[in-house]
């Protein structure tokens, strides 16, 4: 498609942003692997169209803004938080104990907080209140976004990858390998997901902490990722256990779905052609089959990203995973529930934050499903491109 043709339909500002980002990204890849851009022209175009369509769906846009906001908070939250996640303000002002939203506390000059913890003396408004240690809820929710995002990214990087790879092999190879992989999948699917995750996040921490002591770099990288203080290195084992538990739970669904899609895709002539000219199996799987089933997988990935955040909050609400004073949305509710309904803010705001973050991913996933559905795809394409 030439550039004049593309100019025919009206572009919104968001579309232009998409263009700039994708064009630069494509050029960057092109520089590393010459010829990549021309070879994948059609694919890039198709991807742009998907994003244009997303720009025109109000729920999709709402979801996109929620997700962007969530990621932004997770990235910069720890730096803009007024207090550290574990700062017990009751040490300096009694009024911080279970302070309701909007209450003001005073840090006096020469007090513990100003001298030891380096907080500037003065009046502070705790906009979302504080917990029973006088820890600022607003700061903890900002830090909690980081915890949620890092766990979700870690889970989503490996879990689906295992599932997709096994599904590809199983569907393409067939025979005994297929049978073995599918029976294995059956076993994992036989457990309601959360139950297995509960069991493994309960028994794993000891092993994980052993692993962390033998690989100090792993511990320091994780500390930086979760934005934790070095003295809380002990809590890492519990957080990482949840990640491992969710890896165990999160792959079988992908294996099954991908296998089904491969079964129908592998009969296509282009796969046969690739096989005929001697393309190696892994290349057929990852270059010829995978790109053609990527659409539905993308929808699952988006929806599951929200799902992981939700399940992680649920696990930490049950007392698994994050340990105090780590800021984690589920854990804040678990600890705050003791004071419910008197200190309602400790339950209400972290839960609301979880809801909004998860809703964002679900809104995007839902719109993507409509956009990527082959039945409605062309209709949307015409709508986006407008009349020629």
């Amino acid at each position, binding site marked *: 498609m030439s550039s004049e043709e593309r100019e025919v339909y009206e572009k919104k500002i968001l579309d232009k942003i998409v263009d700039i980002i994708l064009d630069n990204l494509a050029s960057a890849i092109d520089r590393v692997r010459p010829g990549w851009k021309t070879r994948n022209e059609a694919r890039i175009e198709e991807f742009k169209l998907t994003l244009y369509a997303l720009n025109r769906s109000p729920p999709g846009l709402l979801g996109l803004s929620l997700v962007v906001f969530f990621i932004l908070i997770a990235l910069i939250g720890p730096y803009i938080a007024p207090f550290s996640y574990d700062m017990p303000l009751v040490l300096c002002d009694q009024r911080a104990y279970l302070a309701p939203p909007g209450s003001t506390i005073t840090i006096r000059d020469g007090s513990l907080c100003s001298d030891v913890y380096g907080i500037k003396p003065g009046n502070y408004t705790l906009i979302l209140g504080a917990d029973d240690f006088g820890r600022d809820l607003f700061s903890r929710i900002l830090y909690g976004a980081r915890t949620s995002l890092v766990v979700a990214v870690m889970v989503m990087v490996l879990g689906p990858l295992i599932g997709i790879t096994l599904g590809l092999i199983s569907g393409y190879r067939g025979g005994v390998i297929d049978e073995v992989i599918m*029976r294995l999948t*059956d076993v994992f699917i036989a457990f*309601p997901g959360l139950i*297995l995750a509960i069991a493994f996040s309960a028994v794993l921490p000891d092993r994980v902490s052993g692993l962390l002591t033998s690989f100090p770099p792993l511990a320091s990288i994780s500390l930086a990722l979760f934005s934790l203080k070095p003295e809380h290195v002990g809590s890492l084992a519990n957080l990482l256990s949840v990640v491992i538990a969710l890896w165990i739970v999160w792959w079988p669904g992908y294996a099954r779905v991908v296998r089904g899609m491969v079964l129908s895709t592998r009969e296509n002539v282009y796969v046969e052609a690739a096989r005929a000219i001697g393309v190696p199996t892994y290349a057929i799987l990852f270059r010829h089959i995978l790109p053609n089933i990527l659409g539905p997988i993308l929808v699952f990935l988006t929806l599951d990203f929200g799902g992981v955040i*939700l399940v992680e909050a649920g696990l930490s609400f049950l*007392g698994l995973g994050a340990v105090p004073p780590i800021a984690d949305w589920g854990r804040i509710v678990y600890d705050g529930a003791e004071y419910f*309904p008197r200190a309602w803010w400790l*339950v209400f705001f972290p*839960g609301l934050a979880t*809801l909004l973050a998860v809703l964002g991913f679900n809104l995007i996933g839902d719109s993507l499903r409509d956009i990527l559905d082959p039945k409605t795809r062309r209709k949307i394409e015409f709508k986006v491109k407008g009349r020629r």
Partner: protein
Amino acid sequence: MLWLADLKRFLFRRALTFIPTVIGVTFLVFFIAAVLPADPAKLWAGGEKANPQVVENIRREYRLDRPIWEQYLFFIKNAVTNQIVSPVSHNKVWEDLARRLPVTMQLTILAFTFIVFIGIPLGILSALKRDSIIDMIVRILALLGVSTPVFWLAYLLIFVFFTRLGWITLAGTPIAPYTITGIPLIDSIIKLDLETFRQVIERYWLPSLVLAYANIGVIARLVRNSFLDALSSDFVEFIDARGLPRYRKYLHVLKNAMVPVITVLGLTFGGLLAGAPITETVFGLPGVGRYLIDSIRFYDYLTLMGGVLLIALIYVTVNLLVDISYAIIDPRVRY
């Protein structure tokens, strides 16, 4: 009788995959023990300061000094003969779980009832009135359902119905003065005992609704899409041509639309079991889910394994039943 032969073959094949799955499930449950902390015996004996002789006894009693496959056989033998004894409470694990199972069953049965009797009508309604306000509400409900943290919703509703309105009780669990199935909800229906039934509903309606909430919208959306799919199939044209009344047409469509819904309802059951720990914790119901969480707190790993095994076995059995009923209803699945 070709039909029956077909069905028999299907059942046989299905059983062939069922048995390896159950064996695999026991392996995976046992694997939980394999990643246990280095020395659970010391924990069970009372921590670091425990008497070494006691630790040694516990280790021998639970075969922790034996090779791993022997431990597995020991676990399976005990599971079958009801000899798994909790090292913490010294009770038999199956008996402890059996005492708590009725609570979880009542919770899931009621939640399931909510899903069926709210979700399916909502779905049909939103398919019949496509792109209307109802359709929109169902869509939002489905989205919110999969986005809301269950515990958060539970606390909001407790605030409204308990703290503000005082409509519900959060203490005690009603028991029936007689046992038929052991589940008061079902027993009271069999005995037509309205008083016990009322008590059970009073205690359980809100927790069940919270548990069902995540699935109601999802099922409604599924029914809607499936209904619309069925509505566009060829037989509908034939029905129209024959001039059958509208409700007869929709009845036919509904029958066809329900086929995929049944499978998902079977899977939903697993989701409800998985949601039980959180719901039971918030509402203070002494069910299996809450018991699992408590057992973790006391390092009672055998109870944890027993509970996980129990839930998985219930779930695979339900799925087996769903598949079989599915094959009976719809001859096409018996490929």
